[in-house]
């Protein structure tokens, strides 16, 4: 292997590492706030990438119908909760959030999709479609289980993952799609060729990390999310609603998933079930971060990307084995260095 190949592998590894970092951060975020191990995170990536690819072809993505369905189910569940007592405000809020919001998104996308928008606008449109799904997934699957154990929440996650993957097959079909890059220019730095898409990936990852940092350190809602992660009872006692932090965490996770999808869609062909594998790699990074540390997760994700890239060069058939094998020594180390308490 010469320096040329090494630089290429490093560049490739950092690019996928940046995407895994985003997913890892979303997983840590959701777990620390809600104790949910969010396996369906990868589905948002696949939905995002496939949605963008369809928009590129000037087609109306089926995710908007899916969004409307999700909203309708969430609305029905809200109605069921309201059967005994309700007030106009709760009803209107639910109506607006679950029916009007997806309706508006549906309208916007139907009008704008065939117009041949610039790539950046299509990317924003994709995020607009996918982000609210976090809200509905939380409402439908997790909110009724807010007080359940980590194990029950994990089982629920597996169910949601399988359901969303199945829905992906129904709505997108089995065919793989590749989106167009946000910008198809290429820059050369010395002997290294850097596609503009990679720069978008690095830039977006850094921007999201900075935005998350500001959100958690500077805003009261961000602090409330941290407080919930540190001490759930304490957070309730100061008036932080579990639902509020849950919804916020899932919305952020879905948004990050959609952004990851938009970023990865143009560099690899995405199928309805590709998201799972990508999500799992983010999960490896999140595990290395102990499902608690944002900085460790971000650094570990870059490491995962690099190892994957070098493994695919030296032992391509063992690529996945090597990446997922990383978990084993980490778990051994974590279990030796920490004393764990069962569930708070």
């Amino acid at each position, binding site marked *: 292997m010469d320096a040329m190949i090494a630089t290429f592998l490093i560049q490739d590894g950092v690019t996928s590492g940046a995407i895994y970092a985003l997913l890892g951060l979303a997983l840590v975020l959701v777990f620390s706030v809600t104790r949910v191990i969010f396996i369906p995170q990868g589905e948002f990536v696949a939905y995002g990438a496939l949605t963008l690819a369809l928009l590129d072809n000037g087609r109306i993505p089926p995710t908007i119908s899916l969004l409307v369905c999700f909203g309708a189910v969430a609305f029905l569940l809200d109605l069921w909760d309201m059967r005994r007592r309700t007030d106009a405000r709760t009803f209107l809020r639910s109506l607006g959030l679950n029916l009007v919001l997806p309706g508006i998104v549906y309208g916007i996308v139907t009008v704008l999709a065939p117009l041949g928008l610039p790539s950046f606008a299509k990317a924003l449109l994709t995020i607009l479609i996918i982000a609210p799904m976090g809200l509905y997934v939380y409402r439908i699957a997790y909110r009724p289980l807010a007080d359940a154990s980590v194990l029950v929440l994990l089982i629920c996650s597996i169910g949601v993952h399988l359901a969303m993957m199945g829905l992906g097959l129904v709505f997108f079909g089995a065919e793989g799609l590749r989106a167009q890059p946000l910008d198809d220019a290429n820059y050369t730095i010395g002997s290294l060729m850097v596609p503009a898409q990679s720069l978008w990936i690095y830039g977006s990852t850094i921007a999201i990390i900075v935005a998350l940092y500001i959100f958690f350190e500077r805003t*009261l809602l961000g*602090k409330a999310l941290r407080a919930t992660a*540190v001490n759930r009872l*304490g957070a*309730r*006692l*100061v*008036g932080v609603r579990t639902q509020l932090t849950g919804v916020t965490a899932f919305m952020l996770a879905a948004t990050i998933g959609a952004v990851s999808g938009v970023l990865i869609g143009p560099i690899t062909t995405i199928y309805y079930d590709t998201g799972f594998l990508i999500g799992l790699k983010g999960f490896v990074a999140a595990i290395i971060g102990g499902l608690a540390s944002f900085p460790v997760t971000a650094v570990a994700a870059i490491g995962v990307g690099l190892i994957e890239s070098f493994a695919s060069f030296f032992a391509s058939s063992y690529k996945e084995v090597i990446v997922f094998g990383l978990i084993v020594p980490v778990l051994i180390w974590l279990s030796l260095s920490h004393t764990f308490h069962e569930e708070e």
Partner: protein
Amino acid sequence: MTGNLLELSGIHASYGRAEVLHGISLSMKAGSIVTVIGANGAGKTTLLNAVMGIMPARGTILYDGVPVPHSVEARVAAGLCLVPEKRELFASMSVEDNIELGGFLRSASERAETREELYARFPRLAERRRQLAGTLSGGERQMLALARALMSRPRLLLLDEPSLGLASKIVTDILDIVSELRKTGVSILLVEQNARAALEIADEGYLIELGEVRRSGPAAELAADPALMESYLGTHS
């Protein structure tokens, strides 16, 4: 309207099948300190948790003459606030963030105003505002828990064993602060094992034993009853 700030009647609460409160009734006037005393396991903490809504309970809880709202958050918004026995601080966050979060349901300007008042009242916390809550001493943690609770501008403060695990000098400080709070119009429902100290600052007292009210009356009267202090409470002083 009964004229009472808090009116409990027939409160029952259970852990699984074991009922720990068997129909507790209690009433307190606005602006007063009422103390609930009793031995370990009498159900004092459960009673406070039931009032706050973190423990499901049967019976009627009237707050300001109307049934108290259902959720914990709505109770906080209505002016109830619990300082639990274990403080439940946000250990890995700064003192300032802990205090800030106490006012989660209030506007930024209201929070800023109350925060300055609290720093004036607790200068020790002002000194340590950048420090992590988990690194504070026991007494400072209790002060922080109180400050965080006061940040929500409660009308009714529920205090669970504020003196637990603290040196006697600090206990006196804390109880002084509690009786001073009353002057600002906060009503206080105080649960204490340290009965003598609690009755000293309270207006009314309730003695709870095995989930039932055994005695109630003006605090001074209970404190002056040697038989009661002896038989139910041992010789706390």
